[in-house]
């Protein structure tokens, strides 16, 4: 900061250090959430329709599983109850993404092509943070609750009794899964810097993520590595459920954390590159 010219006279920097900056952003995010909560109370019918659509989607997702296990007892070591638990886990993750990430990704084209980003760049906030997490759709949290119910039903029926360690592993894996999927979706959305419109790319993401409804073992080997490393939906459903039934080692947990670190770094770099090409749309 010291070498920079200042136009508004000497002023203390906004944050003392890196940690204070993160804390300020956390405080901001809490404000976003409270604001979204207040906003939601104005549209109560929205909550009901979101819940209804979510329940129907969850039900529809389970139909193929029920049909499939009508013809066999297990597929590659997965029983019906375990796959239902997985459907619940998938619903939790997609619900959280729909709450906190999707409303922002769906606006990326508007932000970048109609010049709304201009206004964000002027604010004392990380622009990537703002564009990725500003908007929150609280109603979708009802689907997280629905997913939780299905997960518990599945776990009880499969006689899984996860220990605290296993629950801890599952939580870490789910967190990694959410951050990884958000990174992929962000990267796809940030293509708007170069492609102008990315609405159609969002549709690709939403269709591909459907692969997470099924255990990784249901796919051919080549597809499995794609769904673990390139489009890492495995961390969002398969690994956490395996953790809860007690048969995931520490390798996926450590691997997930490492992969997450790499993905976040790459997306951060991509954002910086994109920002340099941004020429503003309105000014």
């Amino acid at each position, binding site marked *: 900061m010291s070498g920079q010219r200042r136009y508004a006279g000497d002023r203390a920097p906004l944050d003392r250090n890196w940690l204070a900056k993160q804390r300020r952003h956390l405080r901001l995010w809490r404000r976003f959430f409270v604001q979204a909560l207040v906003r939601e109370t104005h549209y109560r019918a929205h909550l009901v329709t979101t819940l209804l659509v979510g329940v129907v989607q969850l039900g529809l997702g389970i139909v*193929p599983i029920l049909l499939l296990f*009508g*013809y066999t007892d297990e597929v590659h070591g997965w029983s019906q109850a375990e796959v239902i638990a997985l459907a619940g886990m998938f619903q939790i993750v997609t619900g959280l993404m729909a709450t906190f990430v999707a409303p922002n990704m769906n606006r990326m084209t508007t932000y970048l092509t109609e010049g709304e980003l201009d206004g964000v760049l002027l604010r004392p906030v990380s622009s990537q943070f703002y564009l990725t997490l500003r908007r929150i759709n609280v109603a979708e949290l009802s689907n997280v609750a629905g997913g939780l119910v299905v997960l518990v039903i599945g776990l009880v029926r499969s006689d899984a009794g996860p220990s605290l360690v296993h629950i801890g592993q599952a939580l870490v894996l789910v967190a990694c899964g959410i951050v990884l999927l958000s990174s992929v979706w962000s990267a796809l959305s940030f293509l708007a810097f170069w492609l102008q419109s990315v609405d159609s790319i969002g549709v690709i993401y939403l*269709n591909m993520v459907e692969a997470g409804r099924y255990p990784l073992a249901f796919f051919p080997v080549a*597809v499995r590595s794609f769904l673990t490393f390139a489009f890492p939906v495995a961390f969002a459903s398969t690994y956490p459920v395996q953790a809860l039934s007690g048969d995931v080692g520490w390798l996926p947990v450590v691997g997930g954390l490492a992969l997450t670190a790499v993905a976040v770094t790459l997306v951060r770099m991509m954002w910086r590159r994109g920002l340099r090409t941004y020429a503003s749309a309105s000014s």
Partner: protein
Amino acid sequence: MSGFARELRVLRRMTVAEIVQQSIYRGAWVIYMAANICVPIISLLIWRTAIASGAQLPIDERYVTTYFVLLSLVTMATSSWMAGFLAADIRLGKLSSWMVRPASLLLGFVANNLSEKFLKLFALVPMVGILWWIFRDSMNIPAGPGHWAVFVVSLVLGAILVFTIDLLIGSLAFWMDDVAALAQARLIIASVLSGAVVPLALMPDWSRGFIDHQPFRFTVSFPVEIVAGSLTGSELVTGLAIQFGYVLGFGVLARLVWSAGIRSYSAVGA
């Protein structure tokens, strides 16, 4: 008859204009079609795994593979997305300006439907072709052009059927404020009953009678079955007859509802 010929001429002109207009977004169509094919591929891999691991399905691997390879093409070719737009035109009064024109507002929707499908076809056919090539060893390819001709006929009938159902839902905007929920419900119900999620052949036995005769089977599943399945000659004829019956039935119903709607229309914004 000259009236019909004129309508056709207008339709051709409007379709060409729409194609020119929509081809601006050709990149987006390619990406949308790539998205469209994702879920059928996922289903294809899942059911093949199930068969390979010993599940005793009532259908074999060849049926499953052919079914899901063709699925995205058929769902695209028979889709309709007009209900929301039609409802908006009725509610906001855009219909008024069309009522003094020498062509129906619906003609515009037909042109839009045909032109978008024409462009989507260019994007989707190569993708389905690649998929077909990858799984060429387990594809059912019907012998002779006869099956393919019947497939095309049933595809066209299916497209008309979906369009008519969609028109019926959109027309309700003459009396209802919001048909979005109904249109959404139609999509959700259709995704299961048309066979777009799971082949109808895998539905449980107790649902057979209903599943085989309900209208949504003839929007997606039936055309695919003609290629993928082993429908006997009489099943084929019965199926086509039922499909034609539904097209006629829904057509008459839509015609009645539409003209009743036009009579009760009070021209908002005129």
